[in-house]
């Protein structure tokens, strides 16, 4: 069976042990976590988690069932499973920016509509938001210029509403 990437949207009770339980489930059972994003929801008693993982269909089925089995887990949705969805990630990239490089970086930012959020005589910090392809593309372009540091948020995702006509 072939591996696929899978983005899970998980609602959990906002309790102290919940995150540890989920992390422990993945390490204990040998599942992969590519990225994990945790934040509050409109309901303060629930937290939302976007979790990107990989595996064949059987493993992904197990991951979802094992998550649901946790007493603190309220809901698990495989965003990537069917229907359309949007996903976004943000990265802050600190690049070397001296003399002629500044011009080139600026052009890249124009093309991708990126924001420069911090400037020093020798560096820029660039904010990139988009899907993972866009992030990868920008990183590849900036790499030869000299990336000093990258911080990524990890992916978040949401199912699109079904269009009714």
């Amino acid at each position, binding site marked *: 069976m072939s591996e696929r990437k899978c983005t899970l949207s998980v609602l959990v009770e906002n309790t*102290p042990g919940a995150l*540890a*339980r989920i992390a422990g489930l993945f390490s204990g059972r040998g599942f992969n976590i590519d990225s994990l994003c945790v934040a509050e929801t409109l309901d303060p008693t629930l937290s939302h988690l976007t979790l990107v993982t990989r595996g064949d269909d059987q493993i992904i089925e*197990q991951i979802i069932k094992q998550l649901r*089995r946790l*007493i*603190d887990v309220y809901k698990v949705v495989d965003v990537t499973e069917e229907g359309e969805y949007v996903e976004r990630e943000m990265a802050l990239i600190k690049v070397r920016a001296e003399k002629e490089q500044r011009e080139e970086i600026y052009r890249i930012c124009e093309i991708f509509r990126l924001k420069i959020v911090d400037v020093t005589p020798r560096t820029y910090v660039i904010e990139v938001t988009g899907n993972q392809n866009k992030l990868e593309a920008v990183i590849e372009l900036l790499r030869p210029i000299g990336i000093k540091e990258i911080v990524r948020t990890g992916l978040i995702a949401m199912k699109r509403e079904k269009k009714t006509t």
Partner: protein
Amino acid sequence: MTGAKMIIEALKREGVEVIFGYPGGAVIDIYDELYKAPEIHHVLVRHEQGAAHAADGYARSTGKVGVALATSGPGATNTVTGIATAYMDSIPIVVLTGQVPTKLIGNDAFQEVDTTGITRPITKHNFLVKKIEDLPRILKAAFYIARTGRPGPVLVDIPKDIQQSKGEFQYPDELDLRSYNPTYEPHIKQIERAYQFIEKAERPILLIGGGVISSGASEVVRELAEKLNLPVTMTLMGLGGFPGDHDQSLGMLGMHGTYYANMAVANCDVLIAVGARFDDRVTGKVDAFAPKAKIIHIDIDPTSIQKNVKVDVPIVGDCKRALERLLEAVKEAGKPKKYWKERFKEWWEQINIWRKRYPLTYKEDPNYIKPQFVIEKLYELTKGEAILCTEVGQNQMWAAQFYKFKYPRTLISSGGLGTMGFGFPAAIGAQMGNPNKLVIDIAGDGSIQMNIQELATAMDQRLPIKIIILNNGYLGMVRQWQELFYERRYSAVKFATIPDFVKIAEAYGAVGLRITKPQEVEETLKKVISMDKLVILDVIIAPEEGVFPMVPAGKATTEMILV
């Protein structure tokens, strides 16, 4: 009301009559309240592992939630093996641990360990109580979670200041656990599909596991099996879920299962698995497990289904309800018993050939007591009416093979974790919960030494448990593997010092007996059974006796080594 008092009140509300525990600084307030609560019988153990196993044995033998109590730090860590044992076999226990005061948590305070952190992967759920207001709800939830759905151990860690602080005690009648909703009612479409497979089957078999026992489904199993004329095989945890002396019972399957059970599973065309999880000790090499079969799998835990083997009809639900629905479907279809009898006649003929070819057996030897003979005699003399606890190793497998468990909750054995030292403290729990039954621990000379200190506990409580040590002078099961797969290099399986178990019994004020000859077995067993005292019977058995049949690990279950 103080937190400590609330704990006692909650125990009363939950109908707890007995708890197993050991005191210490972080639970001294709870003990102070216990002192004033004679309704709750506290059994003072000699080691917290014993408390957890005793709570477990109590739960397994009665179907009620078992309760253990331990102090923070070393008290809590000592319960870990017991909790993991209960977790692997889905046994409902609640473990209460004391914790250092909330202000000190995280400071490496005296006797502080991260108890909820340590036990997270071996509990169904656990709680650290941070506010006195939460305590009643958490205690209620702990019992509820432990016994519902797929049962399991729940731990509640209670800091000392919470035990001492005061609050209003309102024990909730109902719980709103929006994130915890076990599925009890099976999907009726799946039941119909299951019946269609059965209708087309020519060589069906029913495989039952521990889920049948925990859901109280054994009556329905029997009705279904008899109606459809199905052969029935059991996992270690399922023994007693269908009468072992029944004509349709093929006994246990798997690594040390019967030849005919393994052959029947390997050749069946429809396998109905109920409350079993296809552990590697049951399946052997997975690809060769029931290769020709359509598999119907009933289990309350969706994660058990499609985990190890591919299932054709998954049915998530309570085993008992699902079987009742299936039975209804069978009855609705209207085929009489005679029809099914006729339909599977050829299949039964084949099974009976296997049964005749390699029955469960052993070679007699005038010079040595054979352990299988001891168990056989024990079955005869007790007529299958005893509760048998076991340790782990060969003793456990001989008990499983040769005692025909007739009723659910009469075999108390650590299946999933295989914990040596489980049997005796579990027997204490079982005897506490079943004061009028004969409770026997089938032990090994190695295992019994792992919790032998609990003899004092059993004496305190005047429990007439019978410990029968099948003494081969070896860590026998490991020796057997070394004999078969490591060219008899017997590494670290023989103790240089073996204590005199008779004297040990006597030192604790119990009765100690020893037998060495086959002629002594029947007489002595009779005597032991009739005594209203704690007895250790040290049975010196053939030292290199093996457990057979045996499927080598990782091999197909048809590749059995026979006697």
